[in-house]
């Protein structure tokens, strides 16, 4: 990253559980980290810790050595977790005294780093009453990471958000450059798009809404188009893609939200469930995530 330039902050969010937020965040981070000289930082902000636990299972050392587990244990013991950072940030009458280093940020690989979640985040809402006191937390934390000389200069920071509007989601959304909303080709998973698009704006006002990219995840397909070579969604998947696309274009038109429904989609594959624990994006899905990233990048640069 050129010096002085802030990393792009990308949050994956959907209030519906099970749409693939965690897997998408991991696969996007993994895809980005495969590009030469790109450094990616990934945050697990969900108290369910799915991403954190998957990272623990991910280490493909061929041995039982638990590098991440040991690191994580020390981080928790020494109060070097994201929850401790929040405590330091919201402590009344004090400056944000929480130095960051690789005791807070775990190095999965040279290009992909990770800030894990902790179960304490479940109780965050009870302990922090004032949402405005949390608003700048992520912005300030990223500022610290960016400006700490010995830390990596990240190009992208990805956030796996919980399936609800928490204080941490609020903090992320007030500073994110792009919000990715994965939806699935079924009624219940598509239903939340309208809710997010139309209520998010008023919830984070007066902050401007970040750019929002909505895309279909777990798309059912049936072969490739003979002329374009692209995968063809089934009629049912295509129905939900059109409907969600329609919701996005209406939100864009009537609510003045900078939202786009992406043409690219992620296909439904059983193997993707093992993407995090198995070490990476399944080979046949790499083009899907690259296409999704290409569209996201173009949207970000506009």
């Amino acid at each position, binding site marked *: 990253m050129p010096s002085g330039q802030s990393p792009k902050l990308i949050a994956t969010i959907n209030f519906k559980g099970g749409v693939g937020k965690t897997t998408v965040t991991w696969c996007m981070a993994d895809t980005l980290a495969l590009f030469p000289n790109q450094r990616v930082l990934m945050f697990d902000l969900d108290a369910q810790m799915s991403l954190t636990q998957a990272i623990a299972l991910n280490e493909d050392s061929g041995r039982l050595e638990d590098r991440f587990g040991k690191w994580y244990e020390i981080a928790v013991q020494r*109060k070097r977790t994201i929850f401790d950072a929040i405590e330091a940030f919201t402590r009344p009458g004090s400056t944000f005294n929480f*130095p960051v280093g690789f005791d807070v940020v775990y190095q999965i690989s040279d290009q992909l780093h990770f800030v894990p979640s902790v179960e304490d985040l479940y109780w965050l809402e009870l302990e922090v009453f004032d949402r405005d006191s949390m608003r700048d937390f992520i912005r300030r934390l990223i500022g610290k990471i960016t400006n*700490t000389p010995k830390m990596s200069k990240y190009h992208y920071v990805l956030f796996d958000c919980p399936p609800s509007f928490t204080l941490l989601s609020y903090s992320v959304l007030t500073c994110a450059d792009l919000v990715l909303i994965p939806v699935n080709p079924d009624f219940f998973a598509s239903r939340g798009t309208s809710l997010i698009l139309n*209520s998010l704006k008023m919830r984070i006002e007066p902050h401007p809404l970040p750019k929002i990219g909505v895309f279909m995840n777990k798309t059912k397909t049936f072969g490739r188009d003979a002329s374009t070579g692209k995968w063809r969604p089934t009629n049912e998947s295509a129905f939900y893609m059109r409907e969600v696309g329609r919701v996005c274009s209406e939100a864009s038109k009537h609510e003045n939200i900078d939202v786009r429904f992406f043409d690219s989609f992620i296909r439904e594959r059983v193997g993707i469930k093992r993407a995090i624990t198995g070490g990476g994006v399944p080979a046949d899905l790499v083009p899907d995530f690259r296409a999704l990233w290409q569209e996201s990048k173009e949207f970000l640069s506009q």
Partner: protein
Amino acid sequence: MNERGELPTQEDVAALAAEVRELKEVLREVSGKLGRIEKRLRFFFPDSFPGGSRKGKEPDIRENPPSITPQQALDLYSELVRMARSGQEQEVEARVTAMSLADLALLVKELGAPLGKKPSRTGLTKSLMGRLKESIMLSRHTSRPGPDHSVRQGESAPLGEDAANPEETATDLTGADKSPQRSS
């Protein structure tokens, strides 16, 4: 209960069930014989069976190709959604009723709803109406005004604010011995 007000015994119930089975068998046999007689009569005197005439029955969709293209079907669907959303339910129903079975089947297929082995007008209409309801509900939401807050725009700290405090950002990257203690 019998004439004496007693509950039937297990033997009584078993005898009744056997009688019911026997009667059903007789009726099935009679029905089969009647069906065969009707079939022969219908063959020789088709006009003598007003209720059983094939006239007015829906043509088989496999023999009648649709008169619209898949794209036209989807355009028609968008129009139906628009009409339904503006409260023109009766007009929507009239449009669907006026469609041929083959066109209706094509539209339902394009919407990804199941057609079933033997698509009927009732079944297809039900599938189409289900999709219409989904389309309406997917774009419907109930918003409540957000909580009142006094945050002003532009009040947020810039991303690099903490750069101004190098002491605060410095950290021991090799270990956490110097990490701050949690305040009680």
